[in-house]
């Protein structure tokens, strides 16, 4: 009974949010839409990173590389053929791919699949490593991907980057991609695979003793994570309308690490929340960048860059007081929500007493 109700509520929520996305698309200005889109895209990538890092417990730092693959597939194949000569002005595009043009959705899928394939190739040797060693190896591979992109000039235009990717600042489109990712990962985590991931996270030896094929499950988590990172990267490229290799420096990965740590490693709704807080929060803090006068005096602190100081302080506070991130490993559930709505005071006190 409850399960049915919860599913219904989720479905209603997804539809209502789609309505909100339509509203945003038609009523809000392009700045707000851009921020919403960025939140949604970062949520996709945050979710994908949480899959390996949070649920399967494998500390991987390769997200920027997989994003680069997705973004470049979108960049290379969606630029209209007649504009390519302009873009590839230094070295002409390789004739093998010069005439292939794809619609965005297909390019996104191809980018995701290619990412997953690369993840498989990388994962086969690398997933034998654990902890810090895995982190270093995946970080290295993401840099390798970036350097290959920089040097394969006839395919990727090298350091010059690709421009004129048909612009996508459509909240509905990106919302659907995010919703699909969210529903898929939620379903996955609640399936036997998800339980196997968590078992691996908690104790690999115990998990193996229970008959879980360690390598297969790790590889699956890694590939799915790369697939969604590829999709997210593709959307990121399409939103900006341009890609270049410097976008995908390893520092980009830390952005998403921040999102999942802040939201809670191993919490799907946490990642969504983290993405929104980090992206929209940084935009909101922009008021600290603008000059401000108090009693007719300019406060010298209020200059560009000050918001990053504030943001760092807020982060430190968060980490100090919510050591496992805002959501920890728990999720937003309808059951909790309903109990909260019925009696918010009792809910909070009850929780506090625990």
């Amino acid at each position, binding site marked *: 009974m409850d399960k049915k109700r919860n599913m219904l509520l989720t479905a209603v929520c997804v539809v209502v949010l789609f309505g909100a996305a339509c509203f945003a698309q038609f009523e809000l200005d*392009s700045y707000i839409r851009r921020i919403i889109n960025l939140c949604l895209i970062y949520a996709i990538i945050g979710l994908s990173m949480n899959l390996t890092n949070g649920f399967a417990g494998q500390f991987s730092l390769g997200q920027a590389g997989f994003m680069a693959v997705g973004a470049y597939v979108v960049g290379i194949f969606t630029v209209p053929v007649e504009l390519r000569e*302009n873009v590839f002005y230094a070295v002409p595009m390789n004739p093998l791919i010069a005439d292939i043009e794809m619609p965005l959705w297909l390019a996104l899928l191809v980018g995701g699949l290619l990412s997953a394939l690369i993840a498989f190739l990388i994962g086969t040797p690398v997933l034998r490593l654990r902890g810090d060693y895995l982190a270093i190896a995946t970080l290295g591979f993401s840099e390798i991907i970036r350097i290959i992109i920089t040097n394969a000039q006839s395919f990727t235009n090298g350091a010059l980057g690709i421009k004129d990717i048909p612009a996508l600042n459509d909240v509905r489109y990106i919302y659907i991609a995010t919703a699909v990712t969210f529903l898929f990962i939620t379903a996955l985590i609640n399936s036997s695979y998800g339980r196997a991931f968590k078992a691996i996270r908690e104790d690999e030896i115990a998990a193996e003793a229970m008959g879980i094929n360690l390598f297969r499950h790790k590889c699956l988590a890694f590939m799915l994570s790369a697939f969604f990172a590829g999709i997210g990267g593709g959307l990121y490229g399409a*939103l900006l309308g341009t890609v*270049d290799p410097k976008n995908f420096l390893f520092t980009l990965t830390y952005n998403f690490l921040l999102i999942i740590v802040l939201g809670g490693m191993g919490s799907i709704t946490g990642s969504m929340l983290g993405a929104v807080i980090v992206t929209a929060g940084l935009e909101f803090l922009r008021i600290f960048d603008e000059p401000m006068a108090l009693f007719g005096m300019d406060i010298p602190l209020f200059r*560009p*860059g000050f918001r990053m100081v504030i943001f760092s302080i807020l982060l430190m506070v968060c980490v100090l007081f919510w050591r496992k991130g805002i959501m920890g490993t728990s999720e937003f559930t309808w059951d909790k929500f309903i109990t909260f709505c019925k009696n918010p005071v009792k809910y909070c006190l009850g929780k506090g007493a625990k």
Partner: protein
Amino acid sequence: MKMKKVLSILLASAVMVSALTGCGSDKKESAADSNTIKLGVFLPLTGDNAAGGELELRGIKLANKLHPEVLGKKVELVVADNKSDKAEAASVAARLIEKDKVVTLLGSYGSSLAMAAGNIVKESKVPAIGTSCTNPQVTANNDYYFRACFIDPFQGTVMANYAYNKGARKVAIVQEVSNDYSVGLAKFFKEAFVKLTGDKDAIIDIANYQTGDKDFTAVLTNLKAKNPDAVFAPGNFTESALLIKQARQLGIEAPFMGGDTWETQEFIDVGGKEVEGAVMSTAFDREKASTEEAQKFLKAYTDEYKSEPSALTAMAYDSYLIAIDAIKRANSTDPQKIRDAIAKTKDLEAVTGKTTLDENGDAIKAAVIKEVKNGKFKYLDFVDVK
């Protein structure tokens, strides 16, 4: 637990207060709207490119100080930081246009940042003037993006001509392959030089290195064996200075040539006496500062900052002048009319010489060639546009 509650109350109140102040400033802005013209400035003021962004911000602020009014209205600068990040550059450009309702955007340092804002200015039909984004792609296929600087092809060609006139016939190129600026310059240098010499093999070697490399021995040993007349090595000042230093230590005596990124004190600090004789093209030199505007700029800059202005600062200053001039000629604050006026900019008296914008929106202006001599940048030659 108690601590947590206190903290959340504190955080919540902080958010409330900042939200309130946000609203407060909004009201002020709308009240002053009718008497001011807003220009948006988006530059990398934090992150990797912060040094360049800061130099350009100085130029724009100085221009605003010397030319504070147009059409009888005060010009207000709305400065925003793009964090040297593409996604930020795009959102900040959208923010300036949608929220602050600026009539023209100025910026940015870094071509990739300008490209990220390209789609936004195109969609919202608000013109943008680039300060030092030299990649040809910035203005290509975009009617709303202009720039105050010359582009990579021009700079590459200028240096090719210089090398040819100095008698070099076999040249090697060392490019920083992960830097769009370096790759662009190298490519156009090669084209121009091959054309000038009529020799397909005039470029005897193209070697690559990555941003951040410290050891260039492998590249240079190879280069030494080929014995070029000159080496064209555009790139970041740190890497380039190290490259030249190591080349001299290996006994390579060919002169080194580069682009305007070398014109920083750091280049000389890192390179020491080994970079003596290095030649580069740039946009501005005080000895060649012929226009009246340039004299005004030089005086104001030295008074304000007690140092020599860089070409970046001069270019940023010019981007502001182009905007003001266009608003004056359009006699309107309508972005579309301003765009049309910017496109018609011709022989504008700017700091870096008379400025005319071509059909792509790129500035056509003369280049200056400088040489490092006794630890200083010395004016060497002047290349006018044909």
